[in-house]
């Protein structure tokens, strides 16, 4: 298999300054510029270093459980009555989501940089858990920033992070969700930049993060490609993934971008429907702007103030989309749509009932889209959907919505 970090350099984005066409870049305060340059250089060296790639591969295999299966969802396929649906089972990975691919890659980089303290933001808590996990594994200090609202709705993951030795710092500002957690992590980084590495958890923020996070998740698409060739002898017709910042989606999509016949759909959070302040679908009613280090599509008002967002899933509840997704949308290479809270909760139950797999609420947005389109596709068509995370963390929330019950954890 092709190596995840071994990208063909010609015609590739981003450019040396992190631009994906008109998107991306390094829009950060001067205090961070040197650290970002240092990270960019360290990553360039690491990606060219066989020993780095070998250690990463070893840990992904032995510690995290890669490769993850590409599972044929037979009953769900029958029920929808159309395309053959394959799930890329990132939910089976250690810690329960794709996030650890990136956390592991970045902590190996942090070690090369001689940094002993790690910070991260988290929304759903999956990236926080993945970061706390690799910090425990490598003996590093770990501080996780998380919005107070998210700490409540993802209480299970907060407890996991604490068991793993991380300090979870609640963020009260603004709407107390993912965006505010990123602000607070950036403030910490500006203050402690010499000692600290910031493991950003999505394909977001300033260069080199969108590129680096993508590269560490490319393993998802590379495996899926090889697996579908073995199982079906051909490439898929459609890839589907949910998009908050967009890390699991870019990881699945990227190795297929050159395959013209493979269509791709990213699914944003439609919340209560596309009304201002009640969703997190940046390609529906968003505008171009600059937030948290990158130029991209975001939800802001006429004065450029960032708007409130809403989603039942903490991991998709964010005002900006990763810059490479903005670029893929502009080029027309990837389609972006949305699923509402209601649709995601229905898909959450649908997958549990037909396949015995409880997906994360984020992931359930991707499943909701598959549920909408698979039936209308011919039976010989192939869909791969990224089952990016498992839903244990969401059981209490879903029970409240579906059964009207409060679970006491």
């Amino acid at each position, binding site marked *: 298999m092709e190596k995840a970090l071994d990208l063909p350099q010609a015609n590739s984005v981003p450019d040396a300054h992190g631009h994906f066409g008109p998107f991306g870049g390094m*829009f950060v*305060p*001067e*205090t961070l*510029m040197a650290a970002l340059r240092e990270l960019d250089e360290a990553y360039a060296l690491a990606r060219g270093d066989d020993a780095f790639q070998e250690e990463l591969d070893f840990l992904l295999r032995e510690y995290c459980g890669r490769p993850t299966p590409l599972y044929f969802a037979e009953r769900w396929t029958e029920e929808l009555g159309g395309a053959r649906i394959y799930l890329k089972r990132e939910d089976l990975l250690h810690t329960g989501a794709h996030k650890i691919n990136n956390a592991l890659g970045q902590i190996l980089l942090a070690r090369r940089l001689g940094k002993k303290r790690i910070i991260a933001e988290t929304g759903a808590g999956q990236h926080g858990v993945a970061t706390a996990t690799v910090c425990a594994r490598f003996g590093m200090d770990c501080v996780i920033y998380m919005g107070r609202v998210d700490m409540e709705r993802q209480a299970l993951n907060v407890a996991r992070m604490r068991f793993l030795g991380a300090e979870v710092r609640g963020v009260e500002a603004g709407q107390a969700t993912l965006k505010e957690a990123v602000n607070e992590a950036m403030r910490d980084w500006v203050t402690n930049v010499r000692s600290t590495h910031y493991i950003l958890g999505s394909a977001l923020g300033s260069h080199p993060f969108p590129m680096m996070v993508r590269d560490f998740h490319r393993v998802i698409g590379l495996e899926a490609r090889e697996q579908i060739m073995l199982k079906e002898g051909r490439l898929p017709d459609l890839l589907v993934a949910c998009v908050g910042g967009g890390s699991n989606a870019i990881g699945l999509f990227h190795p297929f971008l050159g395959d013209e016949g493979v269509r791709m759909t990213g699914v944003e959070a439609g919340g209560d429907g596309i009304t201002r302040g009640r969703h997190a679908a940046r390609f529906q009613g968003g505008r171009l702007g600059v*937030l948290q280090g990158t130029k991209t599509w975001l939800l*802001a008002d006429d*004065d450029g103030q960032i708007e409130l967002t809403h989603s039942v899933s903490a991991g998709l509840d964010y005002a900006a989309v990763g810059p490479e997704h903005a670029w893929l949308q502009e080029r027309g290479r990837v389609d972006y749509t949305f699923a509402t809270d209601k649709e995601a909760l229905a898909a959450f139950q649908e997958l549990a009932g037909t396949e015995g797999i409880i997906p994360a609420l984020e992931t359930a947005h991707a499943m909701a889209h598959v549920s909408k389109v698979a039936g209308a596709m011919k039976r010989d068509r192939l869909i791969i959907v990224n089952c990016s995370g498992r839903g244990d963390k969401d059981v209490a929330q879903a029970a409240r919505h579906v059964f009207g019950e409060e679970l006491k954890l």
Partner: protein
Amino acid sequence: MSRIDSTFSRLAGENRAAFVAYLCAGDPTLEATPELVAALEAAGANIIELGLPFSDPLADGVVNQMAADRALKAGATTAGVLRMIEAIRRRSEIPLVLFTYLNPVYTYGFERFHRDAAAAGADAILALDLPPDEAARNAELARHEGLQQIRLVAPTTPQERLPLVVSGAEGFIYLVSREGVTGVQDALADNIGDQVALVKQHTDVPVCVGFGIHKEEQAAAVARAADGVVVGSALVRLVEKHRAEKDMPKRLHDFAAPLVRAAHEARA
């Protein structure tokens, strides 16, 4: 000569450092800001920095975050801030610097903002999250006539990067005296003189030092080492504390006056 340039040249002739005061525009209201600016001018401040409030001020500490939040909740808009600057300009010639994050300016229209802000009477812009690298690479973010470009130098800025950062700098260089977000600090970095000297190897533009200054002895120490002293969070904190009181402008004046005096008399 611009208002900022003539201010520095006059102060240099008097062998005095400039006192640069920061306030968040619109905190507690847009109507109150001109009075607060007048109070600072009466206290002897030489240059006023006005923060354009933004919902996600990631380089600011909690004092300035809350100020921006109050301003936005009280209805501050970009157009409102520009109208307020016009009001200040009708009665004062004090140099005005807009201290801002990029997104409100980008959304308003980068070029249009420069034109309208200059017409309103602003003198310069400091866009915190627009490093010179990006300004150079994005034609739409290039320098525009009307506003001088203030540049930030951080303690983490490597020496080899200094020429890029200071190239094209106008008005003054804002040297951040320590790593971190804005906010009051008791300890001042002890090597400020060295940091200033390093920057001055690459530019003739005056160098002002800020981040955390709130005591007279700090202001005096910085005034001996640099061309100007920036005081921000300490003033914003005072506004926060007394914002409901009628005599707030006087309180701000009385708090700022000894700091200004310490800065102005430090080299005597």
